[in-house]
Protein backbone atom coordinates (compact mmCIF):
# COMPACT_ATOMS: atom_id res chain seq x y z
CA UNK A 1 0.00 0.00 0.00
CA UNK A 2 2.96 2.26 0.52
CA UNK A 3 3.68 2.37 -3.17
CA UNK A 4 0.11 3.30 -3.99
CA UNK A 5 0.24 6.20 -1.61
CA UNK A 6 3.58 7.27 -2.99
CA UNK A 7 2.16 7.41 -6.51
CA UNK A 8 -0.77 9.43 -5.26
CA UNK A 9 1.58 11.90 -3.61
CA UNK A 10 3.69 12.13 -6.77
CA UNK A 11 0.60 12.77 -8.82
CA UNK A 12 -0.61 15.46 -6.49
CA UNK A 13 2.83 17.04 -6.68
CA UNK A 14 2.96 16.87 -10.49
CA UNK A 15 -0.57 18.17 -10.88
CA UNK A 16 0.22 21.08 -8.61
CA UNK A 17 -2.42 20.09 -6.08
CA UNK A 18 -0.08 20.49 -3.10
CA UNK A 19 -0.08 23.44 -0.78
CA UNK A 20 3.08 25.53 -0.78
CA UNK A 21 4.35 24.01 2.48
CA UNK A 22 3.65 20.49 1.42
CA UNK A 23 5.35 21.20 -1.87
CA UNK A 24 8.51 22.58 -0.31
CA UNK A 25 8.66 19.57 1.99
CA UNK A 26 8.26 17.20 -0.92
CA UNK A 27 10.93 18.94 -2.97
CA UNK A 28 13.28 18.82 -0.02
CA UNK A 29 12.61 15.09 0.29
CA UNK A 30 13.15 14.65 -3.43
CA UNK A 31 16.53 16.34 -3.31
CA UNK A 32 17.64 14.14 -0.45
CA UNK A 33 16.22 10.88 -1.73
CA UNK A 34 17.53 9.93 -5.18
CA UNK A 35 15.20 6.98 -5.38
CA UNK A 36 12.17 9.19 -4.89
CA UNK A 37 13.50 11.56 -7.52
CA UNK A 38 13.81 8.73 -10.04
CA UNK A 39 10.28 7.63 -9.29
CA UNK A 40 8.98 11.14 -9.88
CA UNK A 41 10.81 11.47 -13.19
CA UNK A 42 9.68 8.03 -14.32
CA UNK A 43 6.08 8.72 -13.48
CA UNK A 44 6.21 12.10 -15.14
CA UNK A 45 7.62 10.61 -18.33
CA UNK A 46 5.18 7.76 -18.47
CA UNK A 47 2.08 9.82 -17.85
CA UNK A 48 3.47 12.41 -20.25
CA UNK A 49 3.76 9.77 -22.94
CA UNK A 50 0.25 8.63 -22.15
CA UNK A 51 -0.97 12.17 -22.53
CA UNK A 52 0.86 12.70 -25.79
CA UNK A 53 -0.51 9.42 -27.04
CA UNK A 54 -3.98 10.67 -26.25
CA UNK A 55 -3.32 13.89 -28.11
CA UNK A 56 -1.99 12.00 -31.09
CA UNK A 57 -5.06 9.83 -31.24
CA UNK A 58 -7.25 12.90 -31.07
CA UNK A 59 -5.26 14.65 -33.79
CA UNK A 60 -5.43 11.63 -36.02
CA UNK A 61 -9.16 11.54 -35.52
CA UNK A 62 -9.40 15.16 -36.55
CA UNK A 63 -7.28 14.60 -39.62
CA UNK A 64 -9.36 11.61 -40.59
CA UNK A 65 -12.49 13.68 -40.24
CA UNK A 66 -10.99 16.32 -42.51
CA UNK A 67 -9.90 13.64 -44.93
CA UNK A 68 -13.44 12.31 -45.12
CA UNK A 69 -14.55 15.61 -46.60
CA UNK A 70 -12.01 15.56 -49.41
CA UNK A 71 -12.89 14.11 -52.77
CA UNK A 72 -9.85 11.88 -52.97
CA UNK A 73 -10.88 10.34 -56.24
CA UNK A 74 -11.12 13.65 -58.05
CA UNK A 75 -7.71 14.71 -56.80
CA UNK A 76 -6.24 11.38 -57.81
CA UNK A 77 -7.62 11.83 -61.31
CA UNK A 78 -6.23 15.31 -61.48
CA UNK A 79 -2.70 14.61 -60.35
CA UNK A 80 -2.07 11.31 -62.02
CA UNK A 81 0.22 11.56 -64.96
CA UNK A 82 -1.84 9.72 -67.52
CA UNK A 83 0.38 7.58 -69.66
CA UNK A 84 -0.92 6.48 -73.03
CA UNK A 85 -3.33 3.57 -72.89
CA UNK A 86 -0.77 1.18 -74.28
CA UNK A 87 1.70 2.01 -71.51
CA UNK A 88 -1.13 1.68 -69.01
CA UNK A 89 -2.06 -1.68 -70.49
CA UNK A 90 1.52 -2.83 -70.25
CA UNK A 91 1.85 -1.65 -66.65
CA UNK A 92 -1.33 -3.32 -65.56
CA UNK A 93 -0.88 -6.55 -67.43
CA UNK A 94 2.78 -6.93 -68.26
CA UNK A 95 3.15 -10.20 -66.37
CA UNK A 96 0.17 -11.70 -68.14
CA UNK A 97 1.36 -10.36 -71.48
CA UNK A 98 4.81 -11.82 -70.93
CA UNK A 99 3.41 -15.22 -70.09
CA UNK A 100 1.10 -15.13 -73.10
CA UNK A 101 3.93 -14.10 -75.40
CA UNK A 102 6.20 -16.86 -74.14
CA UNK A 103 3.47 -19.41 -74.66
CA UNK A 104 2.79 -18.07 -78.14
CA UNK A 105 6.46 -18.17 -79.11
CA UNK A 106 6.80 -21.63 -77.67
CA UNK A 107 3.71 -22.79 -79.52
CA UNK A 108 4.94 -21.38 -82.81
CA UNK A 109 8.36 -22.96 -82.40
CA UNK A 110 6.84 -26.27 -81.35
CA UNK A 111 4.50 -26.22 -84.33
CA UNK A 112 7.31 -25.37 -86.71
CA UNK A 113 9.45 -28.07 -85.19
CA UNK A 114 6.81 -30.78 -85.36
CA UNK A 115 5.70 -29.92 -88.86
CA UNK A 116 9.33 -30.16 -89.93
CA UNK A 117 9.46 -26.58 -91.10
CA UNK A 118 12.71 -26.01 -89.26
CA UNK A 119 14.47 -28.75 -91.17
CA UNK A 120 15.56 -27.40 -94.51
CA UNK A 121 14.18 -30.13 -96.71
CA UNK A 122 10.65 -29.04 -96.30
CA UNK A 123 10.55 -26.43 -98.99
CA UNK A 124 12.21 -28.74 -101.45
CA UNK A 125 9.16 -29.62 -103.40
CA UNK A 126 8.95 -32.16 -106.02
CA UNK A 127 7.46 -30.70 -109.05
CA UNK A 128 4.78 -32.99 -110.32
CA UNK A 129 2.41 -32.93 -107.35
CA UNK A 130 0.07 -30.04 -107.69
CA UNK A 131 -0.47 -30.23 -111.42
CA UNK A 132 -3.03 -32.96 -111.04
CA UNK A 133 -5.54 -30.80 -109.31
CA UNK A 134 -5.35 -27.99 -111.83
CA UNK A 135 -5.44 -30.29 -114.79
CA UNK A 136 -8.30 -32.26 -113.42
CA UNK A 137 -10.43 -29.17 -113.26
CA UNK A 138 -9.33 -28.06 -116.75
CA UNK A 139 -10.06 -31.41 -118.32
CA UNK A 140 -13.32 -31.58 -116.48
CA UNK A 141 -14.31 -28.26 -117.97
CA UNK A 142 -13.17 -29.35 -121.41
CA UNK A 143 -15.08 -32.59 -121.15
CA UNK A 144 -18.16 -30.74 -120.06
CA UNK A 145 -17.89 -28.36 -123.00
CA UNK A 146 -17.45 -31.26 -125.40
CA UNK A 147 -20.35 -33.05 -123.86
CA UNK A 148 -22.54 -30.03 -124.31
CA UNK A 149 -21.35 -29.52 -127.87
CA UNK A 150 -21.83 -33.13 -128.93
CA UNK A 151 -24.80 -33.83 -126.84
CA UNK A 152 -23.03 -36.88 -125.53
CA UNK A 153 -21.28 -37.37 -122.33
CA UNK A 154 -17.83 -38.87 -122.46
CA UNK A 155 -16.69 -40.40 -119.28
CA UNK A 156 -12.96 -40.36 -119.09
CA UNK A 157 -10.62 -41.03 -116.29
CA UNK A 158 -8.81 -37.95 -115.08
CA UNK A 159 -5.13 -37.92 -114.43
CA UNK A 160 -3.94 -37.37 -110.88
CA UNK A 161 -0.58 -35.87 -111.63
CA UNK A 162 1.69 -35.10 -114.50
CA UNK A 163 5.33 -35.01 -115.29
CA UNK A 164 7.65 -35.27 -118.22
CA UNK A 165 9.54 -38.27 -119.54
CA UNK A 166 12.00 -38.79 -122.37
CA UNK A 167 12.90 -41.70 -124.57
CA UNK A 168 16.02 -43.71 -123.79
CA UNK A 169 15.75 -46.03 -126.76
CA UNK A 170 13.81 -46.12 -129.99
CA UNK A 171 11.69 -49.05 -128.81
CA UNK A 172 9.88 -47.01 -126.17
CA UNK A 173 11.98 -47.15 -123.02
CA UNK A 174 11.30 -43.89 -121.17
CA UNK A 175 12.99 -42.25 -118.18
CA UNK A 176 11.17 -40.04 -115.71
CA UNK A 177 11.30 -39.14 -112.01
CA UNK A 178 10.17 -41.71 -109.51
CA UNK A 179 8.10 -39.15 -107.66
CA UNK A 180 6.03 -38.51 -110.78
CA UNK A 181 4.81 -42.08 -111.08
CA UNK A 182 4.93 -43.06 -107.43
CA UNK A 183 1.64 -44.52 -106.29
CA UNK A 184 0.16 -44.66 -109.79
CA UNK A 185 -2.70 -46.97 -110.76
CA UNK A 186 -1.90 -46.70 -114.43
CA UNK A 187 0.43 -44.53 -116.45
CA UNK A 188 0.17 -43.14 -119.96
CA UNK A 189 2.58 -41.09 -121.97
CA UNK A 190 1.46 -38.60 -124.55
CA UNK A 191 3.68 -37.53 -127.40
CA UNK A 192 3.87 -34.16 -129.03
CA UNK A 193 1.22 -35.14 -131.54
CA UNK A 194 -1.21 -35.84 -128.74
CA UNK A 195 -1.24 -39.62 -128.97
CA UNK A 196 -1.37 -41.51 -125.70
CA UNK A 197 0.37 -44.79 -125.06
CA UNK A 198 0.02 -47.05 -122.09
CA UNK A 199 3.26 -47.73 -120.29
CA UNK A 200 4.38 -50.02 -117.51
CA UNK A 201 7.04 -49.44 -114.95
CA UNK A 202 10.05 -51.65 -115.51
CA UNK A 203 12.31 -50.24 -112.84
CA UNK A 204 12.08 -47.87 -109.88
CA UNK A 205 14.94 -46.34 -107.99
CA UNK A 206 13.30 -44.26 -105.27
CA UNK A 207 16.68 -43.35 -103.78
CA UNK A 208 17.86 -41.58 -106.91
CA UNK A 209 14.29 -40.57 -107.83
CA UNK A 210 14.39 -42.46 -111.15
CA UNK A 211 11.69 -44.50 -112.83
CA UNK A 212 12.12 -46.36 -116.11
CA UNK A 213 8.93 -46.91 -118.11
CA UNK A 214 8.25 -49.04 -121.16
CA UNK A 215 5.56 -48.32 -123.72
CA UNK A 216 3.37 -51.41 -123.99
CA UNK A 217 0.69 -50.00 -126.25
CA UNK A 218 -0.07 -51.95 -129.42
CA UNK A 219 -0.49 -48.74 -131.43
CA UNK A 220 3.08 -47.73 -130.69
CA UNK A 221 5.54 -47.63 -133.54
CA UNK A 222 9.27 -47.43 -133.28
CA UNK A 223 10.46 -43.91 -132.50
CA UNK A 224 13.49 -44.02 -134.68
CA UNK A 225 17.03 -43.24 -133.69
CA UNK A 226 17.19 -41.17 -130.46
CA UNK A 227 18.96 -37.91 -131.39
CA UNK A 228 20.72 -37.22 -128.08
CA UNK A 229 23.49 -39.09 -126.30
CA UNK A 230 23.92 -39.62 -122.54
CA UNK A 231 26.82 -38.15 -120.73
CA UNK A 232 28.42 -40.20 -117.99
CA UNK A 233 31.02 -37.74 -116.77
CA UNK A 234 30.04 -34.68 -114.75
CA UNK A 235 29.43 -31.46 -116.57
CA UNK A 236 31.26 -28.26 -115.74
CA UNK A 237 29.91 -25.22 -113.95
CA UNK A 238 28.44 -22.51 -116.14
CA UNK A 239 27.64 -25.03 -118.85
CA UNK A 240 24.82 -23.75 -121.00
CA UNK A 241 21.92 -26.14 -120.38
CA UNK A 242 18.31 -26.43 -121.44
CA UNK A 243 15.26 -28.50 -120.80
CA UNK A 244 12.09 -29.29 -122.58
CA UNK A 245 9.00 -30.57 -120.85
CA UNK A 246 5.33 -30.37 -120.02
CA UNK A 247 4.63 -28.05 -117.11
CA UNK A 248 1.42 -27.28 -119.00
CA UNK A 249 -0.49 -28.94 -121.84
CA UNK A 250 1.87 -27.70 -124.53
CA UNK A 251 5.63 -28.32 -124.28
CA UNK A 252 7.80 -25.63 -122.80
CA UNK A 253 11.45 -24.91 -123.50
CA UNK A 254 13.65 -23.42 -120.81
CA UNK A 255 17.34 -22.69 -120.63
CA UNK A 256 19.96 -21.49 -118.20
CA UNK A 257 23.27 -22.42 -116.73
CA UNK A 258 24.62 -25.14 -114.56
CA UNK A 259 25.17 -23.17 -111.37
CA UNK A 260 26.49 -25.74 -108.92
CA UNK A 261 27.95 -29.21 -109.05
CA UNK A 262 25.94 -30.16 -105.99
CA UNK A 263 22.33 -29.90 -105.03
CA UNK A 264 20.64 -28.68 -101.89
CA UNK A 265 22.88 -28.91 -98.81
CA UNK A 266 25.68 -30.43 -100.84
CA UNK A 267 23.56 -33.29 -102.19
CA UNK A 268 25.90 -34.97 -104.70
CA UNK A 269 23.00 -36.60 -106.56
CA UNK A 270 22.02 -33.29 -108.07
CA UNK A 271 23.19 -30.37 -110.11
CA UNK A 272 21.87 -26.98 -109.30
CA UNK A 273 20.64 -25.19 -112.38
CA UNK A 274 19.22 -21.80 -113.19
CA UNK A 275 16.71 -23.09 -115.70
CA UNK A 276 13.20 -21.90 -114.84
CA UNK A 277 11.17 -24.99 -114.09
CA UNK A 278 7.73 -25.62 -112.74
CA UNK A 279 5.62 -28.51 -111.51
CA UNK A 280 5.27 -30.83 -114.49
CA UNK A 281 8.87 -30.33 -115.60
CA UNK A 282 9.83 -33.19 -113.29
CA UNK A 283 11.33 -36.10 -115.19
CA UNK A 284 12.27 -34.00 -118.17
CA UNK A 285 15.70 -34.20 -119.77
CA UNK A 286 18.41 -31.66 -119.02
CA UNK A 287 20.66 -31.25 -122.01
CA UNK A 288 23.89 -29.40 -122.53
CA UNK A 289 24.66 -27.21 -125.52
CA UNK A 290 25.95 -30.18 -127.49
CA UNK A 291 22.69 -32.02 -127.00
CA UNK A 292 23.93 -34.55 -124.45
CA UNK A 293 21.52 -35.54 -121.70
CA UNK A 294 23.31 -34.56 -118.52
CA UNK A 295 20.45 -34.93 -116.04
CA UNK A 296 16.81 -35.26 -115.15
CA UNK A 297 14.99 -32.17 -113.95
CA UNK A 298 13.39 -32.93 -110.63
CA UNK A 299 12.90 -30.29 -107.97
CA UNK A 300 13.17 -26.74 -106.84
CA UNK A 301 13.75 -24.87 -103.64
CA UNK A 302 10.60 -22.89 -103.06
CA UNK A 303 12.02 -20.54 -100.47
CA UNK A 304 14.80 -19.25 -102.64
CA UNK A 305 14.32 -17.86 -106.06
CA UNK A 306 16.09 -19.59 -108.93
CA UNK A 307 17.33 -22.69 -107.14
CA UNK A 308 16.38 -25.68 -109.25
CA UNK A 309 17.81 -29.14 -109.25
CA UNK A 310 18.43 -31.91 -111.74
CA UNK A 311 19.57 -35.44 -111.08
CA UNK A 312 22.96 -36.17 -112.62
CA UNK A 313 22.83 -38.44 -115.66
CA UNK A 314 25.39 -40.88 -114.24
CA UNK A 315 22.73 -42.06 -111.79
CA UNK A 316 20.36 -42.58 -114.69
CA UNK A 317 22.93 -44.72 -116.48
CA UNK A 318 23.48 -46.74 -113.33
CA UNK A 319 19.75 -47.23 -112.99
CA UNK A 320 19.49 -48.49 -116.56
CA UNK A 321 22.25 -50.95 -115.85
CA UNK A 322 20.30 -52.19 -112.84
CA UNK A 323 17.11 -52.97 -114.72
CA UNK A 324 16.36 -56.65 -114.05
CA UNK A 325 16.87 -58.65 -117.20
CA UNK A 326 13.58 -60.49 -117.00
CA UNK A 327 11.52 -57.32 -117.21
CA UNK A 328 12.81 -56.53 -120.65
CA UNK A 329 12.89 -58.57 -123.81
CA UNK A 330 16.05 -56.88 -124.99
CA UNK A 331 18.99 -55.39 -123.20
CA UNK A 332 18.66 -51.64 -123.72
CA UNK A 333 21.32 -50.13 -125.89
CA UNK A 334 21.67 -46.43 -125.41
CA UNK A 335 22.45 -44.14 -128.26
CA UNK A 336 26.06 -43.10 -128.17
CA UNK A 337 25.95 -41.01 -131.32
CA UNK A 338 24.85 -37.51 -130.83
CA UNK A 339 23.22 -36.03 -133.88
CA UNK A 340 22.49 -32.66 -132.27
CA UNK A 341 26.02 -31.40 -131.71
CA UNK A 342 26.33 -28.96 -134.56
CA UNK A 343 22.76 -27.76 -134.79
CA UNK A 344 21.29 -24.45 -133.64
CA UNK A 345 19.19 -24.54 -130.49
CA UNK A 346 15.96 -24.26 -132.49
CA UNK A 347 16.90 -27.26 -134.59
CA UNK A 348 17.97 -29.19 -131.52
CA UNK A 349 14.64 -28.62 -129.84
CA UNK A 350 12.75 -29.52 -132.97
CA UNK A 351 14.71 -32.74 -133.16
CA UNK A 352 14.11 -33.84 -129.59
CA UNK A 353 10.42 -32.95 -129.60
CA UNK A 354 9.14 -36.44 -130.58
CA UNK A 355 11.26 -38.04 -127.88
CA UNK A 356 9.89 -36.09 -124.94
CA UNK A 357 6.56 -37.19 -123.52
CA UNK A 358 4.02 -35.92 -121.10
CA UNK A 359 3.65 -38.54 -118.38
CA UNK A 360 0.07 -38.82 -117.15
CA UNK A 361 -0.57 -40.70 -113.99
CA UNK A 362 -3.97 -42.07 -113.03
Amino acid sequence: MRDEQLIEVIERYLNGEMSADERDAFEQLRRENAELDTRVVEHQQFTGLLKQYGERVALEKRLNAIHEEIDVHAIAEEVTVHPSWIVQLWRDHHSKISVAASIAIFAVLATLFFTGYLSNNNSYTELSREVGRLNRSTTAIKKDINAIKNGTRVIAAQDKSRGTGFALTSNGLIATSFHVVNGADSIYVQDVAGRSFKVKVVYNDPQSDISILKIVDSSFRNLGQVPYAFKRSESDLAENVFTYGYPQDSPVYGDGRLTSANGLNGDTLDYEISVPINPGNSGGPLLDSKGNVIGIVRAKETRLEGMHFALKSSYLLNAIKNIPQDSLTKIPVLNSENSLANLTRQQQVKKIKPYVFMVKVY
Partner: protein
Amino acid sequence: MNTESKSSIPTDSEIVFGILNNSENAIKRLYVAYFPMVMQLILNNNGTADDAKDIYQEAIIVLYNKVKKGDFELNSKLKTFIYSVCRRLWLKRLSQMNRYGGDIHDFNDYLSVENEVEEQGERDIQFGKMQSALQMLGEPCKTIIEDFYIHNRSMQEICESFGYTNADNAKTQKYKCLQRLKKLFFQQK
Protein backbone atom coordinates in the same frame (compact mmCIF):
# COMPACT_ATOMS: atom_id res chain seq x y z
CA MET B 1 -13.03 38.50 -52.16
CA ASN B 2 -13.25 37.35 -48.64
CA THR B 3 -14.55 33.87 -49.41
CA GLU B 4 -11.97 33.46 -52.07
CA SER B 5 -9.08 34.15 -49.80
CA LYS B 6 -10.54 31.66 -47.38
CA SER B 7 -10.67 28.81 -49.87
CA SER B 8 -7.31 29.61 -51.44
CA ILE B 9 -4.03 28.43 -50.01
CA PRO B 10 -3.51 29.94 -46.55
CA THR B 11 -0.30 31.81 -45.75
CA ASP B 12 2.33 30.00 -43.76
CA SER B 13 2.10 32.26 -40.74
CA GLU B 14 -1.68 31.87 -40.69
CA ILE B 15 -1.18 28.15 -40.34
CA VAL B 16 1.55 28.34 -37.71
CA PHE B 17 -0.49 30.66 -35.52
CA GLY B 18 -3.58 28.61 -36.20
CA ILE B 19 -1.86 25.48 -34.90
CA LEU B 20 -0.50 27.28 -31.87
CA ASN B 21 -4.01 28.52 -31.12
CA ASN B 22 -5.53 25.07 -31.66
CA SER B 23 -7.59 26.41 -34.51
CA GLU B 24 -9.57 23.63 -36.09
CA ASN B 25 -10.04 25.67 -39.24
CA ALA B 26 -6.32 26.28 -39.72
CA ILE B 27 -5.56 22.56 -39.70
CA LYS B 28 -8.36 21.90 -42.09
CA ARG B 29 -7.20 24.55 -44.54
CA LEU B 30 -3.65 23.31 -44.28
CA TYR B 31 -4.80 19.76 -44.91
CA VAL B 32 -6.89 20.67 -47.94
CA ALA B 33 -4.23 22.95 -49.39
CA TYR B 34 -1.39 20.49 -49.75
CA PHE B 35 -3.05 17.12 -50.05
CA PRO B 36 -3.12 17.16 -53.89
CA MET B 37 0.61 17.80 -53.95
CA VAL B 38 1.29 14.74 -51.79
CA MET B 39 -1.23 12.68 -53.69
CA GLN B 40 0.67 13.51 -56.86
CA LEU B 41 3.96 12.46 -55.30
CA ILE B 42 2.68 9.15 -53.96
CA LEU B 43 0.46 8.11 -56.85
CA ASN B 44 3.22 8.70 -59.35
CA ASN B 45 5.69 6.73 -57.29
CA ASN B 46 4.03 3.35 -56.97
CA GLY B 47 1.63 4.34 -54.20
CA THR B 48 -2.12 4.28 -53.69
CA ALA B 49 -4.55 6.91 -52.43
CA ASP B 50 -4.49 5.21 -49.03
CA ASP B 51 -0.71 5.38 -48.92
CA ALA B 52 -0.97 9.07 -49.72
CA LYS B 53 -3.39 9.57 -46.85
CA ASP B 54 -1.13 7.78 -44.35
CA ILE B 55 2.00 9.57 -45.43
CA TYR B 56 0.34 12.95 -45.58
CA GLN B 57 -1.21 12.65 -42.13
CA GLU B 58 2.11 11.58 -40.68
CA ALA B 59 3.74 14.63 -42.24
CA ILE B 60 1.01 16.91 -40.86
CA ILE B 61 1.63 15.40 -37.42
CA VAL B 62 5.37 16.04 -37.77
CA LEU B 63 4.65 19.66 -38.63
CA TYR B 64 2.05 19.97 -35.87
CA ASN B 65 4.43 18.67 -33.22
CA LYS B 66 7.25 20.84 -34.46
CA VAL B 67 5.08 23.93 -34.32
CA LYS B 68 3.68 23.00 -30.91
CA LYS B 69 7.17 22.45 -29.58
CA GLY B 70 7.98 25.93 -30.80
CA ASP B 71 11.00 25.00 -32.84
CA PHE B 72 9.49 25.51 -36.23
CA GLU B 73 11.23 28.38 -37.87
CA LEU B 74 9.68 29.85 -40.94
CA ASN B 75 12.91 29.73 -42.89
CA SER B 76 11.43 27.47 -45.50
CA LYS B 77 8.00 27.34 -47.00
CA LEU B 78 5.50 25.08 -45.30
CA LYS B 79 4.79 23.54 -48.63
CA THR B 80 8.42 22.58 -49.13
CA PHE B 81 8.65 21.24 -45.59
CA ILE B 82 5.58 19.05 -45.99
CA TYR B 83 6.71 17.84 -49.36
CA SER B 84 10.16 16.96 -48.01
CA VAL B 85 8.78 15.06 -45.05
CA CYS B 86 6.36 13.12 -47.25
CA ARG B 87 9.11 12.35 -49.71
CA ARG B 88 11.40 11.08 -46.96
CA LEU B 89 8.61 9.02 -45.36
CA TRP B 90 7.60 7.53 -48.67
CA LEU B 91 11.15 6.58 -49.60
CA LYS B 92 11.42 4.84 -46.24
CA ARG B 93 8.14 3.05 -46.78
CA LEU B 94 9.11 2.01 -50.30
CA SER B 95 12.39 0.50 -49.19
CA GLN B 96 10.60 -1.32 -46.37
CA MET B 97 8.26 -2.82 -48.92
CA ASN B 98 11.17 -3.54 -51.29
CA ARG B 99 9.39 -1.56 -53.94
CA TYR B 100 11.95 1.17 -54.23
CA GLY B 101 13.46 1.10 -57.66
CA GLY B 102 16.14 3.67 -56.81
CA ASP B 103 14.29 6.36 -58.65
CA ILE B 104 11.62 8.78 -57.48
CA HIS B 105 9.69 11.23 -59.62
CA ASP B 106 9.85 14.60 -57.94
CA PHE B 107 7.35 17.39 -58.36
CA ASN B 108 8.86 19.92 -55.96
CA ASP B 109 12.02 21.15 -54.32
CA TYR B 110 12.83 19.40 -51.10
CA LEU B 111 14.99 19.80 -47.99
CA SER B 112 16.83 17.32 -45.86
CA VAL B 113 14.44 16.42 -43.04
CA GLU B 114 16.17 13.32 -41.69
CA ASN B 115 16.07 14.44 -38.07
CA GLU B 116 12.40 15.28 -38.01
CA VAL B 117 11.47 12.02 -39.62
CA GLU B 118 13.73 9.99 -37.32
CA GLU B 119 12.30 11.67 -34.25
CA GLN B 120 8.81 11.03 -35.45
CA GLY B 121 9.67 7.41 -36.15
CA GLU B 122 10.89 6.84 -32.60
CA ARG B 123 7.85 8.50 -31.13
CA ASP B 124 5.61 6.40 -33.35
CA ILE B 125 7.22 3.28 -31.94
CA GLN B 126 6.49 4.47 -28.39
CA PHE B 127 2.91 5.25 -29.31
CA GLY B 128 2.52 1.89 -30.96
CA LYS B 129 3.64 0.21 -27.75
CA MET B 130 1.28 2.35 -25.72
CA GLN B 131 -1.59 1.49 -28.00
CA SER B 132 -1.08 -2.24 -27.74
CA ALA B 133 -0.45 -2.02 -23.98
CA LEU B 134 -3.78 -0.23 -23.57
CA GLN B 135 -5.40 -2.79 -25.83
CA MET B 136 -4.12 -5.65 -23.69
CA LEU B 137 -5.08 -3.88 -20.50
CA GLY B 138 -8.76 -4.44 -21.20
CA GLU B 139 -11.81 -2.88 -19.59
CA PRO B 140 -12.50 -1.19 -17.24
CA CYS B 141 -8.80 -0.35 -16.72
CA LYS B 142 -8.39 1.11 -20.20
CA THR B 143 -11.22 3.59 -19.77
CA ILE B 144 -10.16 4.54 -16.26
CA ILE B 145 -6.60 5.26 -17.39
CA GLU B 146 -7.72 7.13 -20.49
CA ASP B 147 -10.25 9.18 -18.54
CA PHE B 148 -7.81 10.15 -15.85
CA TYR B 149 -4.52 10.61 -17.66
CA ILE B 150 -5.64 11.61 -21.15
CA HIS B 151 -8.99 13.30 -20.76
CA ASN B 152 -8.07 14.88 -17.42
CA ARG B 153 -11.26 13.80 -15.72
CA SER B 154 -11.28 14.00 -11.93
CA MET B 155 -11.29 10.93 -9.72
CA GLN B 156 -14.70 11.99 -8.49
CA GLU B 157 -16.24 11.86 -11.96
CA ILE B 158 -14.62 8.55 -12.72
CA CYS B 159 -15.84 7.18 -9.43
CA GLU B 160 -19.41 8.11 -10.34
CA SER B 161 -19.44 6.87 -13.89
CA PHE B 162 -18.04 3.50 -12.83
CA GLY B 163 -20.29 3.22 -9.80
CA TYR B 164 -17.56 2.79 -7.20
CA THR B 165 -18.88 3.15 -3.68
CA ASN B 166 -16.09 5.45 -2.61
CA ALA B 167 -13.20 7.31 -4.16
CA ASP B 168 -10.61 5.19 -2.37
CA ASN B 169 -11.77 2.06 -4.15
CA ALA B 170 -11.52 3.91 -7.44
CA LYS B 171 -8.04 5.15 -6.60
CA THR B 172 -6.87 1.67 -5.69
CA GLN B 173 -8.31 0.38 -8.96
CA LYS B 174 -6.62 3.17 -10.90
CA TYR B 175 -3.28 2.43 -9.18
CA LYS B 176 -3.51 -1.26 -10.05
CA CYS B 177 -4.41 -0.44 -13.60
CA LEU B 178 -1.49 1.93 -13.97
CA GLN B 179 0.95 -0.65 -12.59
CA ARG B 180 -0.34 -3.24 -15.04
CA LEU B 181 -0.14 -0.79 -17.89
CA LYS B 182 3.49 0.01 -17.07
CA LYS B 183 4.29 -3.65 -16.92
CA LEU B 184 2.62 -4.32 -20.26
CA PHE B 185 4.32 -1.31 -21.80
CA PHE B 186 7.83 -2.16 -20.71
CA GLN B 187 7.46 -5.85 -21.46
CA GLN B 188 7.20 -5.12 -25.15
CA LYS B 189 10.30 -5.07 -27.21
